[in-house]
Structure formats: C-alpha cells, structure tokens
C-alpha cells in the first residue's frame, strides 16, 4: 500500500494540537459521537420517533382532521374481525410462498449452470442480472402492458400458439399469478448473484478430495456444494421473505391491489387505510401488526441460522 506519504502529515496539524488544548484532550472521547451524530439525528427523527408515534396513533381514531380520539385497543380489536385484513395477510403469505422458494430454486440452478465454463458466460450472467436495475415502477408498467388482456404480447403469443386469451390482470384468479411471474423476473438474478458468489468461494480442493475418494458428481453436489451453500441460502431466505412482505411499488403500479382485493397485500392495505379511506389510527395498527410479523420472522430465521451454524 502506498500509504507512507499519508501518515507523514504536515506540521501545521501538530501546531494546531498545541493551540486547541481543550479539544485535543477530549477529542478521542467525543469524536465517535460527533461522527455518528448525523445518522443518529436522522434515525431519531425519521425512524424511531415515527415508530413510537405510530404506536400512539394506533390507539386513536383519527381522520387527520380535528383531534385524535383515544379509543384504546379499538383498532386492534377491529383488526381481528376485519375480513379484509385477513384477506390481505393471506394474500401476503400466498405471494411469499409463490415467490420465495421458486426464485431461490431458479437462482440456484442458474448459478450452478453459469458457474461452468461456456462461451459468452459473463454476458449471459449480465442478462439475468439486468432486471435488478429496473425500477419497480417501470417493471410494473411493462408487466401491466405485456399482461394486457386485449393488446398484451403474452396473450398474442398464447393465441398464436393456438390457446385462448387469459384475463391476466382483470380476473381475480389470474392477477396474483401474474404478479408472481413478474416478481420472479425481478428476483432470480439477485438469487443467482448471491449463489454464484457462494459457489466461487468454495475451495477447489474440496472437490479434488471428493474426487480422489471416488465421489460421483451427484454425491459431490450433495455432500460438498449443498452444505457449503447453507449460509447463502439463509441470507437469501431472510432477504426474500422480507422483500415479499414489503413489496409495494410493483403491485401498486401493476394491479393497484385489484381486481377486487385479490392482490391487496398488507402494505397495500396500510396505504389504502391511510390515504384512501383516511383512517390513520387503523392504518397504524395494521402497520404495527406487519412490523411484529416481520420481526417475528426475522428472529425465527436468525435463531434457525445460528443453530445450524453451531451444528456445522
């Protein structure tokens, strides 16, 4: 490292130390707090305070106009009996189940295939990775156009192949599958990149040793590759579940939560309660419920991953 020039600093800074007595004696102790201060202030104002405030509002009935009415746990009671809330929760879980294992499995297959030597390998990798830079709004817009019932290219291809048109986005039955397919397009490249990095970090000698022991390719995969991909799998599982619970932009643009409530996820329901039906207290209560759900999942994942790490 060519850092020898950096550590010999100009004499002025030494002179400064003698001048600023108080600062130089306290610098070591105060500097860490000074350096993290901007983040702490922003974090307090825009994350911590809103979270507390959301809990407060969730105990009130409030339309933004006038004073909030304290109603105790009224919003949470309502939540238990609100069939739309359960519908949104069920949609969220179905969406997670539809997207998380599939995107990870396809990502793993792609990573395994693209980890071998072949012509145009890095070019192919790039193409699978491309959707990651496309905004969710653009993705939703393109998907809405491609899945369009009358003029969409997907129905045109189906018709040309001799099938009949599918009412992708206008039927409550097909809207969620359309969303899942679009999400797979977005996510497989991400899973592929994480798995590729994990594959590349496996030392070659493990495979050589397995080969000397006479292990077949299938056994090498089962007993060398798969166990060593475990950390990447856990990371992807956590991130993908969190992603599927958060996804808002794509659905807002592609289906708006409809038709009916067939693609309304919890985050859509929060947005709708707050900015369409103006029930701030209820929106916050749903938000707190979602946060509890995400925290619960994250803690479960974390404990599970720690246990397996201890076993390994």
């Amino acid at each position, binding site marked *: 490292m060519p850092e020898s020039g950096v550590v010999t600093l100009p004499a002025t*800074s030494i002179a400064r130390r003698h001048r600023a007595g108080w600062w130089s004696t306290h610098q070591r102790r105060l500097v860490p707090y000074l350096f993290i201060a901007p983040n*702490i202030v922003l974090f307090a104002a825009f*994350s911590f305070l*809103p*979270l507390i405030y959301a809990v407060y509002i969730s105990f009130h009935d409030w339309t933004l106009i006038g004073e909030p009415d304290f109603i105790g746990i009224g919003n949470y009671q309502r939540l238990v009996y609100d069939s739309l809330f359960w519908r949104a929760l069920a949609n969220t879980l179905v969406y997670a189940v539809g997207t998380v294992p599939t995107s990870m499995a396809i990502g793993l297959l792609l990573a395994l295939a693209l980890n071998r030597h072949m012509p145009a390998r890095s070019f192919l990798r790039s193409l699978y990775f491309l959707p*990651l830079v496309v905004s969710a709004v653009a993705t939703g817009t*393109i998907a809405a156009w491609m899945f369009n019932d009358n*003029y969409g290219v997907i129905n045109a291809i189906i018709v040309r192949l001799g099938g009949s048109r599918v009412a992708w986005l206008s039927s409550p039955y097909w809207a969620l599958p359309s969303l899942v397919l679009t999400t797979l397009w977005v996510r497989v490249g991400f899973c592929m990149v994480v798995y590729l990095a994990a594959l590349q970090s496996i030392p070659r000698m493990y495979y050589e040793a397995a080969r000397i022991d006479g292990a077949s390719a299938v056994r090498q995969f089962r007993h060398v590759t798969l166990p060593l991909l475990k950390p990447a799998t856990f990371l992807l599982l956590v991130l993908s579940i969190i992603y599927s619970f958060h996804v808002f932009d794509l659905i*807002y643009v592609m289906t708006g939560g409809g038709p009916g409530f067939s693609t309304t996820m919890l985050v859509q329901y929060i947005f709708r309660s707050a900015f369409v039906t103006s029930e701030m207290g209820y929106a*916050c209560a749903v938000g707190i419920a979602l946060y509890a759900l995400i925290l619960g999942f994250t803690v479960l994942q974390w404990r599970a991953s720690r246990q397996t790490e201890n076993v390994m």
Partner: protein
Amino acid sequence: MATRRHFADSACWLGLIAGAAVMVFPIYWMFATAVRPHAEIFEAIARLVPSSLSWSNFHTVLTRYPVLTWVNNSVIIAVVAVALTVFINLLCGYTFAKFRFPGRNILFFAILGALMVPIQVILVPEFLIVSWLGLLNTHLGVILPRAAEAFGIFMVRQFMVSIPDELIEAARLDGAGEFTIFFRVVLPLSKPIIAVLVIFTFMWRWNDFAWPLVALTDQDMFTLPLGLNLLRGEVNPDWGNVMALALLSLLPMLVIFLAFQRYLVQGIASTGLK
C-alpha cells in the same frame, strides 16, 4: 461418453440462452412499443419487430407532460441524496468499525433495527413529521427521511474493519486530528466501498416510489417514477407514450449497469443488498 457430455453441455447452454432471451424480452418490448408507429400498438397480433421506427411517442411525452421538470427533480434528489448518504454513512460505518465507546453496541443495533422498519409501517407518522417540518412537496422532504441507510452503514463497517489499525494509530502519533485521519487516511483506502455505495444509493433514490408518492403531491415536484405512474394510471393509458417515458427513466440505470456492473455484483455478493 465424451460426445454425450458435450451434447448435455450444449443443451444446457442453449437453455441458458433461451432463459436470457426471456429476461431481456420485457426491456426489448418496452423499446419496441415506444418506437413503433402508433397504429401498430393496438394490433392484436403484436408484431415482434416494429414495421418502422417512429420517435413521435417521445415527442408527445416531452411536449405534453413536464418530463424535463421530472428529470430535473429526479436528478437533484438522487445527487443530493448520494452526497449526503454516502458521506454520513462513511463517517458512521468508520466509527462503528474503528472506535470503542460507551453505548456502541446498543447504538449499532438500534440503528440497524429501527432502519429495518419498512416505510409502509411508519408511512402515516412519517408523513405528519415531514409536513410539520414544512417539507412536503420539497426535495429535502424526500431526501432526509431516507438519508440514513442501514445497509450502507453495515456495508461500510464490514469493509473498514479490515483497514489496519496501525495506519490510523501512526497518523494519530503524528498529531493528525480525527477529521484529517478520516479524510486523508481512511477515505483513500475505501475507494471500492465508496464506489459501491455511490452506485447503490443512486439506484435506490432514482427508483424510489412509495415515499415520494406520499411526500410529493404537486405534479411539478414529481420524480420520474411518479410521472410514469401518472401516465400509466390514466383511464385509457397511451401505451406508446407510457413506454417512451419508461425507457427514458431507465436510461441512466442502463448506463450505470453497463459501466459499473462489477460494483453492483460486488455489492450484492458481499452483503446481499438490493
């Protein structure tokens, strides 16, 4: 045996090419829709290749909507957010990597924990706080709530842990102030992580939607994603126009993708962020 293996490799390769074609097709289709003659867009047979190139959609979008204003807003928000976020996250990540101080662990977990709160959970209070500050419909109102980025802090910390303590101590013995050390010793060694941080922060802010949707209601303050959502949400969206705007909004990201792909892959591979 060798030929069969060769055959399997070729089949795998062709399968990968077919898959890659599926991945690229939506982007191509956006382009094809944006540049085809208007009458052709609503032909039910959906020609794969436009019969001729027409730039009229771009012309219509640019003249009928304040697209340049939206571009301007997007650029200002993304650039200021990158400068602010990258700087304070570098400072914060460096501190957590290289300083021991009372409250360090609690603060670190508090930052990570609270910043992982999804924006939708705190949408209402966030909206109220920003409106109290008088920042609704301003660039700052979009930038400040997302300026402290948990992934950024985490990533910087991971990177800076591996900077040798001896370099920092040597500079201290030479009498260098802490700011001097940060700017002259630590930052020059952190160029790779700075590049990753700049690229990801730009991408996040350029593509942001949920928070700007709430914080910006005035059409002249819209960013490109909000403008795109506006066009797409019209009763009978003109898909040619919509795709032209989608393509415009995607261009900077495509350039970044082509120029800095290595950093994108590195960022994802090292911390699994997106």
